[in-house]
């Protein structure tokens, strides 16, 4: 059947591209999660009425986050070429895509973290303070656990956005399914390759969404 519908698909190449996409997505999701959490916590804690209320820090962080969130990803990649070259030593391949992916997605996730933390009942934080909890304890034992479902669903959305970003990064030489669809599919007029790459991306997205939804359902005890 695959011979009939997808005559030009080279399955070995397809698997390799899938692996590359998963690799880029996986690594960037992990690092985006860490940086996004830190930035999001900083945004939340320094905002008005919170534990570290600090207008200057909040404003600077918010501006950086907004700037990087506003730049279209394809332009961000181009702008970051010198930076990528300095820290990764190359601008080709999966690893070269990582800085742009992380810098593009982390501020996006940071905002989601901020929103998630804002949804926490203020009374719960007050109760923890009344018990004599330190700020670190509050972050670790109140803020993060109490916002976990929102943090996970935010991460799901971010991961799916990152799959899309990897495809874009692929077009300019990062490898992966986007690269395959563009070079082997579009430029050589083999539509079946493009369609197959799309199907694989869709499957990846569905799986991520499924994992995210299940995790949220398990975590949410409200």
């Amino acid at each position, binding site marked *: 059947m695959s011979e009939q519908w997808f005559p030009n698909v080279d399955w070995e190449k397809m698997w390799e591209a899938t692996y590359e996409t998963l690799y880029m997505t996986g690594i960037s999701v992990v690092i985006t999660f860490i940086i996004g959490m830190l930035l999001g916590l900083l945004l939340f804690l320094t905002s008005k009425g919170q534990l570290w209320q600090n207008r200057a820090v909040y404003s600077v962080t918010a501006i950086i986050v907004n700037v990087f969130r506003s730049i279209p990803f394809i332009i961000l990649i181009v702008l970051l070429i010198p930076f990528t070259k300095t820290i990764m030593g190359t601008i080709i391949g999966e690893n070269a895509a990582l800085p742009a992916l992380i810098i593009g997605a982390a501020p996006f996730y940071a905002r989601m973290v901020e929103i998630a933390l804002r949804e926490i009942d203020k009374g*719960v934080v007050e109760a923890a303070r009344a018990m004599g909890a330190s700020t670190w304890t509050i972050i670790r034992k109140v803020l993060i656990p109490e916002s976990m479902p929102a943090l996970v669903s935010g991460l799901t959305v971010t991961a799916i956005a990152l799959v899309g970003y990897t495809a874009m990064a692929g077009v300019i030489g990062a490898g992966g399914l986007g690269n395959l669809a563009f070079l082997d599919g579009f430029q050589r007029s083999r539509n079946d390759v493009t369609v197959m790459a799309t199907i694989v991306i869709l499957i990846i997205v569905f799986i991520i969404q499924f994992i995210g939804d299940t995790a949220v359902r398990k975590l949410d005890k409200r």
Partner: protein
Amino acid sequence: MKPGNRLFKKRCQITRSSMLREMRERNFERKAFLSLWADRLFSWKGSDPVIFIEQAKKVFQTKNGPVKAVDNINLSVQEGEIFGMIGYSGAGKSTLIRMLNGLETPTEGSVTVAGRKISTIKGTELRKARQEIGMIFQHFNLLWSRTVRENIAFPLEIAGVAKAERDKRVAELIELVGLEGRGDSYPSQLSGGQKQRVGIARALANNPKVLLCDEATSALDPQTTDSILDLLVDINERLGLTIVLITHEMHVIRKICHRVAVMENGQIVELGPVLDVFRRPEQPITKRFVQQVTEPEESKETIQHLLTEHPDGKIVKLTFVGVSAEQPVVTELIRSFQVGVNILQGKISQTQNGAYGTLFVQITGDPAEVARAVAFLDAQQVDSEVITYE
């Protein structure tokens, strides 16, 4: 001299005079009387106040200028006491109770709780002090992500208690608040009353010296409110724990408090033992609060109606306080005078220091006899008031 001594002496005097009064009123057997008062005195273990607030002020800067939430408050609470603060919203009681564990710092003045000057300490020292002050909240403020057991263990984790000991203590607390078998439930699976029980267990976990209750029953239905109040009294008696509570319901004050402070515009406008405040409310706001529990609205209508229907009779409001609430005044009245006595409405409320009640009666008959009957009532240890058209 410690700051509390003067106040304590004053309290002793009050105690002595009320002892003597009670002795007269009750005609008590000496022995029984002494043991009763010995109990009462020993239940006030501390000679120094466990909470001492001096000249506390709190000013909030708002867009419409500064607002005085707490205005020059002096207050001391004795060890083992249940102290209530009542006021409408915005009276400053919430700010005041938050000063007791440093969630708010006073703009001026000082707050001392269990020997620590809460108003000046910071950092680790403040956190240590807070571990000795439990607090429960109107909306319970439980962590939804933790089970009952884990919620109760939370303050123990903060205090750095080892796992094995933590588990033991949590089991004790679950039993204390009557939540056996619910240890593994999540807060979302509990009723309001059960949630507040978890809140209480959590607040008691580190054996605090003081328990602060911030409108702890305001989100509960009347029946649940009563069961939570009973639990608080039980804890107060069993552990000798000092409780400070704020509320806008006089019912709560009546049911469990020893002393009450009435707050308005950031100031304490009236302060005293609950029964005294019930007996002689001075400020209009206090009178309104007292009416919440003594005079249901409908009685006024009934009385107006009866006044219209029976212009010849006299309607008398009898106020019984403390011991006299148990005396058979009405029986005496009917036996001694040729009058008809019609009971219109009555209510007796139990407070922590005795009963308080009001009774509306209509007295009919020969005007001269009625006048004598009213004079008799006046001579009793009952406050009586002839009600006429308003």
